[in-house]
């Protein structure tokens, strides 16, 4: 039996591990710098992260050698269990204003939504590969959307908008993978864009023109097209109006909901400090352990959400560039495995996981560099955080498993 497992591991696309280990080292180097310079005695972020590597590697190996068939068979059950798991924190106490963690009674807490991300992906993969769906029809998309929407809605209420976003994204790419019409996918995204762009007249005008062009090119039935267009425009127009009807404290509540990390020192403080950390690092960085923004604690949540700023400050642009290349390489490699996979189930899982990694990467780096609003999303393999690290290595295990050529 052991030989069989060994055989399985050996035939896995192990080269993907190189990227994750390089990224992991980068993260640990930064965590060590923080712990050492700021004289934090263990247990600190570095020591805890190192400790979490043990269950992470163990679970990765489990995920690598698990039978695909078994996964396929029980995934709906696991999906059901995970729905309950993400609901459990609501029974417990609020931690930092959110119901996100399950208290295990031990030294650590567990964040089930991290696991839920890829459980949804596998459940979706099973649904999309089991049924011979006519993807030309919009109606075929409804059930997959519901599969990812249910846990998303629960997580939104925790509230954890970042994770919710990551949960919703794989369904788009996976539907695209199985041949959904881009126009249909566009229809899913369009209402959100209508609302988001509504706050700026120029951007909204541009969006309205884009919308009209896309609808025109896609040539839907006349009435469908007209309804779609005006439905979206109406949504965009009504939203700011409704927004202005709200009282200030209601607005604030919604803003805090969208961005729970709003700082007491004022919105934007985190972003300013993060950009300053990055920018002052320059091309080569200030040197390991020399980041003043980091060590004088101007940089907030530096171990987890803003660790990119620590890397940027101490190791410079060149290191961030290398980091991005490592990420692209890894994600594209997973996509390629998805493309070459012989069965649809495996392919879809790989596409979903690559989407999760890509979403984390873009949202995290975009947030720390001030491109997008603050969403508390960590960076895979680099950010501190036990549940997330374990989850990332489990996804890596899935990649190794489903990226394998043979079918057991």
């Amino acid at each position, binding site marked *: 039996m052991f030989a069989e497992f060994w055989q399985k591991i050996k035939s896995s696309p192990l080269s993907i591990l190189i990227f994750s280990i390089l990224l992991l080292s980068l993260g640990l180097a930064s965590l060590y710098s923080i712990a050492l310079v700021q004289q934090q005695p263990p247990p600190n972020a570095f020591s805890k992260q190192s400790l979490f590597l043990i269950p992470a590697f163990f679970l990765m190996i489990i995920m690598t050698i698990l039978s*695909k*068939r078994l996964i*396929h068979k029980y995934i709906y059950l696991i999906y059901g269990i995970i729905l309950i798991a993400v609901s459990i924190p609501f029974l417990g106490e609020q931690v930092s204003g959110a119901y996100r963690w399950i208290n295990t009674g031990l030294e650590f807490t567990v964040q089930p939504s991290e696991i839920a991300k890829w459980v949804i992906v596998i459940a979706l993969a*099973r649904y999309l*590969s*089991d049924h*011979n769906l006519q993807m030309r029809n919009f109606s075929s998309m409804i059930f997959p959307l519901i599969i990812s929407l249910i846990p998303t809605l629960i997580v939104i209420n925790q509230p954890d908008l970042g994770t919710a976003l990551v949960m919703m994204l794989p369904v788009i*790419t996976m539907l*695209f*993978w*199985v*041949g959904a019409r881009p126009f249909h996918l566009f229809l899913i995204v369009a209402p959100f864009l209508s609302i988001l762009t509504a706050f700026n007249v120029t951007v909204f005008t541009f969006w309205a023109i884009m919308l009209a062009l896309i609808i025109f090119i896609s040539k839907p039935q006349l009435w469908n097209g007209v309804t779609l267009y005006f439905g979206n425009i109406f949504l965009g127009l009504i939203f700011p109006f409704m927004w202005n009807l709200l009282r200030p404290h209601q607005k604030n509540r919604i803003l805090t909901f969208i961005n729970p990390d709003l700082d007491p020192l004022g919105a934007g403080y985190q972003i300013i*400090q993060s*950009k*300053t*950390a*990055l*920018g*002052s*690092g*320059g*091309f080569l960085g200030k040197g390991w352990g020399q980041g*003043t*923004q980091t060590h*004088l*604690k*101007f940089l907030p949540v530096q171990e987890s959400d803003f660790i990119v700023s620590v890397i*940027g400050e101490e190791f*410079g*642009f060149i290191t*961030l*560039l290398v980091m*991005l290349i490592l*990420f*692209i390489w890894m*994600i*594209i490699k997973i*996509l*390629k495995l*998805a*493309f070459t*996979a*012989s*069965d*649809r*189930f*495996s*392919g879809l899982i790989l*596409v979903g996981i*690559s989407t999760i990694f*890509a979403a984390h*990467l*873009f949202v995290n*780096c*975009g947030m720390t*560099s001030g*491109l997008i609003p603050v969403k508390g999303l960590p960076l895979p393999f680099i950010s501190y955080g036990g549940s997330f690290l374990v989850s990332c290595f489990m996804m890596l295990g899935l990649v190794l498993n489903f990226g394998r050529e043979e*079918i057991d």
Partner: protein
Amino acid sequence: MLRSSNTVSKSRYFILAICIISLNVILAYRFFQLQVLDYDLYSQRSDNNRIRATSIPAPRGLIRDRNGEIIVDNYPTYVVFGIGAEIVDIHKNFSVISHTTGIDTSILRDNYKSYYRNRFLPTRLAKDLTISQLSRLEESKDKLTGIIYKQYPERIFNPRIRASHVLGYLKEINQDMISTKSSTNDYQFGDLIGWSGLERQYESLLRGKKGVSYFQVDSFGREAGNVKGHDNSLPQPGQDIYTTLDITLQELLESEFKGKKGAGIVSNPKTGGILSYVSSPDYAPDLFTGLISKNDWESIITDPDKPLLNRVSNGTYPPGSIYKMVVAFELLEKNFVSTDWEILCTGSYEFYDRTFRCWNEFGHGKVNLEKAIIQSCDVFFYQAIQNVSLDELKIRSKEFLHGIPTNIDLPTEMKGRVPDRQFMNKLYGRWGWSKGALLNISIGQGEILVTPLQMAAYINLLATRGSTYPLHLVQQNKELIESPMVSKRSWKLIGEYMEKTISNTKGTGRRSDPKIQGLKIAGKTGTAENPHGEPHAWFLGYGEKNGEMISVVIMIENGGGGGSVAAPLAKKVFKQYFSRTLTNLVSQ
């Protein structure tokens, strides 16, 4: 189930790959923008975040007298600061400080409000704490949070003299003054700046250069070590200023002026250096250091004797008879009178329908120029002046420094007033004044006004026969004052007359002579009528012995007769100065 084949078009794979690559290109460009293109901006911001500079005050230069004795010194006082971020209960802090040091809580609260910059920077609560106040505060330190002390140098004054109008005072710079002082922008809110007198005139020398110490702070504003690459600079103390003042003479003259209103200047005609400079009444020089109470301030500014007025340089008075030398020079130079030309003084002079009186109502009898100076006969000048035009007299007056600023090294001085035709026309209208005004001016009355300081320059010019230097307190001007265009004979004659004014038994200035062997004194008195009451008593004169010379100007506001009131005061100055040089010579 797993057999459903993975039929994906290559284009879909490529589209996803391109999406991921392009998102990362956006990220890479964003990092490039922040870290390479905008590096300088963020590097600066990062430094601004963490690097704090505090200035170390430079000890201000001392002010010394001509012998090096210190007039204005520094002594350490303590300033109490509060750091907003570290203060737990501000009201408790205030009450503890107030209780231990006796400073009113309202002062603490006002200071905290007006000096507050941000919660991490020390905010000044009180200054001028003595060591004992500080030690009491130190004892109750466990009840205080966020309170620190710093030592500051403060001005302290030689108790022998006041000289407040010369020395001036320091004032805290305010926001408006900082913006006007933009060229020297190392002034900060709350710094002291020379506000008047020598402190203001020599601000740039006295001030020195503040030192800077850099330190690093963390995001809570707590100190976190030194900053690499930023060297601290030590403060450069201000330069000491050696004045020409003679502290002993100043002490004497100040005590003589006690209870009187007026001005006294003693200077060296050969250099222009001022030995003594008194404007009375004055104020304590430390009035403006520390907290001035509202009552003190009210009583100073509402005092009818105007102690804040610098009478020496900024008070203008009619010169009275001391002006007569100017007229005498004009008469001699233009040959309007000869030395034996005589008039008869009967005590008054009828000019058209007006009667002009001599100060001596019984008359001086037969009077020539010599007697007119010695006994200060007014009638002589009423008659002699009639050939002189007002404009010519003005030219002569300016030669003798009337109506001309002395350019003394003090921030302000008045120019005085010498009337000419144009001025009179403007004041009274073309036909509104007559030659009678000229008669009045000839004895230094009427529209002519001078400052005591101008008179010091004038007597120096007379003492040196036209080769004196501008008056100064610190820095000597290397260029001689332009000499009046008068003949040697005139210098000699006027000099003799002024000597006789002192030595003659009927000379008006005889009371100024201390009768010291070898001391020759020359001078002139004046009794200037004015609408404010008693006449102003004037004396100006110079004494010379063994080549050493000083000049004295005394003006006592509403003091009475110059010969009886001002001259005896000058005598004390001469006596002290020249008996001192005698003992000095003996001791050497």
